[in-house]
């Protein structure tokens, strides 16, 4: 009957096929979407239950050098699960958000969102260099398309700006792939890493620089983050949740995959550069978020800051702190995904209720939109890395790694970062406690806030499931190399 590792292709193809079905379906699209969502999340959980040992599926039956393979190790399974949760939340939220005037965009949003889900799953499970390029490109186009969904002038400009930047990044990445293919003659990741380890040529460093540079551009690392705030800030809440939590995270995931796999021997020089950029991102992102008046911009800049954390961690991946740094990075990525998704959804709910984007229009929201405010608070706590959330576990491990490696500067930056995050997020929450100045405001249901709260609580519960998660990562962390 069906092969045991068939789960991997199904995880990619099911969302893709559903997207196609949704394109055809008219009225019963909503039901199909919900059913598909439940099925896919169940499959992701099934994959999770496989525990740490990796699954491998050669597409089309062709073995590694010739064909393309799908691989799922601990890291991938965790990210797939996180993607499933965030996408489900965004889709459910989308059902409620795109109502009335925005129903038309709602019908278009659904297939594109499912395609995005398929794309992310494909990227997470990819085991082939060129395949990574194609999935990255798919995500980029989908993200640009979704960002421009609202078709306002600002959204279109932001989407185009993002597209331009992303195209440059993709070309750089493709150039890196070309050089690597030229140097090693193969595209399967583990073969590349074997051959790179065999004879590290200078060209590989150039390829490395190109690929990591391109991906950093896509992941909006500090100097190259200009495009993210308008794009994520201006988009519809479910879209910005997907963008911030998944698309930006995907490019980070590819860098991590390359960093640990094929390009492991070359990472000597690049680490500190990423560390410095990450540190500056934390401080700059935090500082900007503190000064923003628009609620969604605050959350967008917070994404820039948190990506800073992830890239800073690359510099920690050395010496005694390697294992805890890796664990910390993954936990931070998962926690950030859940929390950032919840925060954008909550922000969307508040904006709808307050009828405006400005932070000081949120007065009195604590009493009118309790669920949304609680979601915002819990997500804020997770981002700031306060106990008992998963964010705290991630930060704790990163701090521990910094300590073991003796990198006091990064330690200080990370502590300052968490303080900065706490301050600008709780500043927003504090405003909601003020008494509501004007009585009349568009009364809307708590459903939007409810969905956001569900995702936020998942971020909180992840805090308690830290140890099982780390068991999943154990094989990846200890061997240090590609399985």
């Amino acid at each position, binding site marked *: 009957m069906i092969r045991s590792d068939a789960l991997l292709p199904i995880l990619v193809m099911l969302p893709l096929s559903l997207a196609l079905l949704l394109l055809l379906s008219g009225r019963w699209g909503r039901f199909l979407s919900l059913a598909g969502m439940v099925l896919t999340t169940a499959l992701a959980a099934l994959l999770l239950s496989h525990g740490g040992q990796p699954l491998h599926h050669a597409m089309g039956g062709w073995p590694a050098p010739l064909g393309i393979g799908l691989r799922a190790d601990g890291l991938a399974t965790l990210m797939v699960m996180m993607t499933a949760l965030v996408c489900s939340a965004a889709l459910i939220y989308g059902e409620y958000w795109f109502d009335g005037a925005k129903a038309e965009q709602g019908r278009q949003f659904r297939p594109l969102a499912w395609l995005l889900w398929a794309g992310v799953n494909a990227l997470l499970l990819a085991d082939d260099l060129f395949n990574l390029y194609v999935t990255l490109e798919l995500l980029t186009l989908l993200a640009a398309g979704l960002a421009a969904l609202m078709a306002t002038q600002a959204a279109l400009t932001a989407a185009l700006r993002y597209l331009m930047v992303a195209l440059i990044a993709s070309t750089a990445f493709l150039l890196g792939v070309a050089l690597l293919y030229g140097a090693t003659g193969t595209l399967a990741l583990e073969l590349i890493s074997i051959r790179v380890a065999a004879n590290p040529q200078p060209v590989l460093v150039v390829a490395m620089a190109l690929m990591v540079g391109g991906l950093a551009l896509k992941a909006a690392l500090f100097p190259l983050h200009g495009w993210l705030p308008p794009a994520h800030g201006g988009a519809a809440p479910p879209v910005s949740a997907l963008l911030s939590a998944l698309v930006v995270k995907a490019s980070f995931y590819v860098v991590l995959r390359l960093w640990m796999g094929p390009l492991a021997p070359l990472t000597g020089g690049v680490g500190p550069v990423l560390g410095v950029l990450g540190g500056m991102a934390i401080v700059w992102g935090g500082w900007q978020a503190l000064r923003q008046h628009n609620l969604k911009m605050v959350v967008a800049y917070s994404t820039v800051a948190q990506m800073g954390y992830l890239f800073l961690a690359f510099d920690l991946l050395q010496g005694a702190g390697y294992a805890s740094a890796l664990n910390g990075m993954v936990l931070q990525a998962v926690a950030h995904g859940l929390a950032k998704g919840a925060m954008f959804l909550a922000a969307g709910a508040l904006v709808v209720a307050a009828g405006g984007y400005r932070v000081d229009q949120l007065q009195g929201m*604590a009493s009118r939109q309790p669920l949304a405010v609680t979601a915002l608070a819990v997500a804020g*706590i997770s981002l700031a890395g306060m*106990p008992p959330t998963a964010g705290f576990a991630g930060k704790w491990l990163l701090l*521990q790694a910094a300590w073991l490696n003796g990198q006091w500067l990064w330690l200080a930056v990370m*502590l300052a970062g968490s*303080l900065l995050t706490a*301050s600008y997020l709780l500043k927003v929450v504090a405003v909601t406690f003020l008494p509501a100045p004007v009585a009349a405001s568009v009364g809307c249901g708590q459903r939007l806030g409810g969905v956001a709260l569900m995702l936020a609580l998942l971020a909180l519960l992840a805090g308690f499931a830290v*140890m099982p998660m780390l068991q999943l990562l154990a094989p990846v962390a200890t061997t240090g190399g590609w399985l």
Partner: protein
Amino acid sequence: MSDAALLLITVSCSLVGGIVIFLLPEQQRGWRTAINLGAALIKILCLLLIVGAVLNGQVLSVRLPFLPGADLVLRADAMSLLFAILSALLWLVTTIYAIGYLEGAPHRRRFFGFFSLCVTATMGIALAGNLITFFLFYELLTLTTYPLVVHRGTPKALAAGRRYLAYTLVGGVVLLTGVLWLQQLLGSVDFSHGGVVSVLADSHRPALVAIFALLIGGVAVKAAVVPLHGWLPEAMVAPAPVSALLHAVAVVKAGAFGVVRICYDVFGIEYAASLGVLQPLAVMAGVTILWGSLRALVQSDLKRRLAYSTISQASYIILGVALFGPLATIGGLVHLVHQGIMKITLFFCAGNYAETLGIHAIDQLDGVGQRMPLTTVAFTIGALGMIGVPATAGFVSKWYLGQGALAADMGWVLWLLLASSLLNAAYFLPLLHRAWFRVQRQPWPEEHIPRRPGRETSLLLLLPPLVTALSVVMAGLWAGAPFSPLVWAQLITALEYRP
């Protein structure tokens, strides 16, 4: 019932209560009160069971995996029970008081929800078995008390809340650094009598001193030691039950309890003495005691005066810890409980005055003894307790602190105690004088609750202060009784100072 289940229920019953309260709609007043009181009673019941177990020598503990190399440990030993029982009992009383106090006020659902979460955090701090668990609940306490401080929603409350957060968050980070550093040196840091740090080689001594400074610095923020006390008077803007809970039981006590834990169960008092860190700690506590009392003298607002008195009283506990010797330890520990019951009485009465007659400033107190005799009696007992008049709880702890000071031959502490007692008298007796002997000159600012023949204010407001005032006298008079705080403190000290 297995001890793990018992411990978890103790900590989580108010958590569950809090969450259920959050879900209840605002107008479900009956249910909310039932849940609140139910959770409090369950907690007290569990604690009694645990006390039974601990008395016959058994140490209950449960270990949950949380982080690699550091897992959550809840442990019920003698010291943790002291603080846990205090918190549980005072929470029950404060809940009753809050129900009466917030009659008809808006946002009660939010208030009681966070109220329960706050006590969960306190219970967690009390029962924490190792440093990382302590830190976790310590941070949780910050988060849950913030909404209580800004409950009123006025810009002033927000400013106070912001200041409170600034202090406690920075404190939290400092504590985190200390915990992390110690974690590197020692692996998981479990609390154990006589401390765990002494096993380290001497080469670590300077590092250990630095760690001690960091840990105590982090905890001192909440214990409102002088340089870091700025937030406490500002937090007075919160409603009375909050300031009662904040000052008497939860936050300040958690800070003081933290100092106790760090000195006894992490460093071990003998090792700390050998490190020579106790002397500066004693000086710091002494400075706080005097500074708090002096500042209290000049305050014109009643609750701010009580706040500054809390700052000075909390440092008695730290002084007790810092004076190396069993007697001082007993004094410190027993003051942990006594200060709690005395201070909560004073705040309840202050709350009654504010709620019933709208009295906030001290010079509005003239003749209040006639109008509200019972509340003023409770206030008098609390105040005399604070001064340390014999037969009240305050005297017992000051007595043992004095003895401890002599045993540790720190003469100056004796005179410090005398000076601070006189200062306490200087800022409490005028209040009593106004209440009892002055005749009421101008009408009460805003008399919410009119004077009925039988009762001066609503029963829910009147009962708690009387109960706690009675407990102040009982703790003072029956100090020798089997279950009194003094005997319990002696039991703990016997464990701490191995022969």
